[in-house]
């Protein structure tokens, strides 16, 4: 798959490394070129410096031929806007949006987006480990 990752923070960079070592073509977008150092020297990922809500930047990253876009910048609203651009303007088949704030997730889903909320995932995981029985119910 040809995958675009918007945001090269801890999640973005680790995701990029995992996906590219799994044989996918990965392009990472970040406004700060220094953040690409998180990808490490062995990484095959391509990188594009710029805002992921800028059409020129998305085009440079190859949005026209992308199979998936994952938006994981540190700004929920940038993530939402980049995801809607990918979904509705470029018809990218798979679009996943990170949502920092659990309280917002429901509203963001009603906009038609597939969301991942790391905070809720952590809560669920911790609860599962504290009381495995309850988790099974």
């Amino acid at each position, binding site marked *: 798959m040809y995958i675009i990752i918007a945001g090269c923070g801890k999640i973005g960079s680790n995701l990029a490394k995992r996906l590219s070592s799994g044989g996918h073509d990965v392009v990472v977008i970040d406004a700060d070129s220094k953040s690409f150092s998180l990808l490490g020297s062995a990484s095959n990922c391509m990188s594009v410096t710029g805002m992921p809500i800028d059409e020129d930047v998305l085009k440079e990253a190859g949005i026209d031929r992308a199979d998936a876009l994952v938006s994981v910048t540190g*700004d929920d*609203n940038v993530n*939402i*806007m980049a995801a809607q651009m990918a979904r509705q*303007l470029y018809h990218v088949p798979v679009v996943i949006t990170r949502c920092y704030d659990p309280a917002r997730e*429901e509203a963001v889903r*009603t906009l*038609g987006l597939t969301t991942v909320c790391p905070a809720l995932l952590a809560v669920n995981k911790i609860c599962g480990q504290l009381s495995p029985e309850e988790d099974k119910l």
Partner: protein
Amino acid sequence: MNITIVGGGNVGYYLTKTLLAEKHRIMLIEQSMPRCERIVAAFNTSNLSVTHGDGTDAESLLESGVRDAEALIAVTGQDQNNFVACQLGKDYFGVKRTIARVKNPKNIRVFEKLGVNSVISSTSRIAGSINQELDWSDVNQLFLQAASHVRVKEAIIGESSPFCGKRLCEIGLPKGMIMVCLVRGNIALIPNGETQLLADDSVIMLGAETELPDVLEALRGKVK
């Protein structure tokens, strides 16, 4: 009309002032407490309610009364925030008309394609677009697509302008540049060569992007 305004910076402040004067009911959301206080202190009217909160958050929008709004105008300083406020307003709360300010002119097209009703890249035109048929962003967008070197700009004639008191035919505008409209008091007129320019006239100029700045400066009468 009940109008939600997201963002209480300078644009939000003057937009509120303008729309209150036109008898609209304004529900404003602003994230910074000092800005909220400034707006509350400035306008003593029951037609204004100010909510301290994030206008890109559904809870804050709900609290501000967005369900009663017939229009939502997003004028924060960041395109992504204005976009999300408009999307939530329209898709989550069913607000009929959404209007956004954008910083990046390329986002005009993006916002419109993604369902925002009016997109404005110039702060000075936001208040006008609520009540006027003329949609400024459409005009400039047309030029961006069809004739990328042409722009429309507004200037107010300054007392010290070398053009003040002159007739249009005496000025000698650069070739290809025209004065589209002149507003004097409450009267808008299409100027001709005999039209005399007076101080405080508001004029709308159409011309090449490269030539407009010098002419606008002369019209405003700013001394270098």
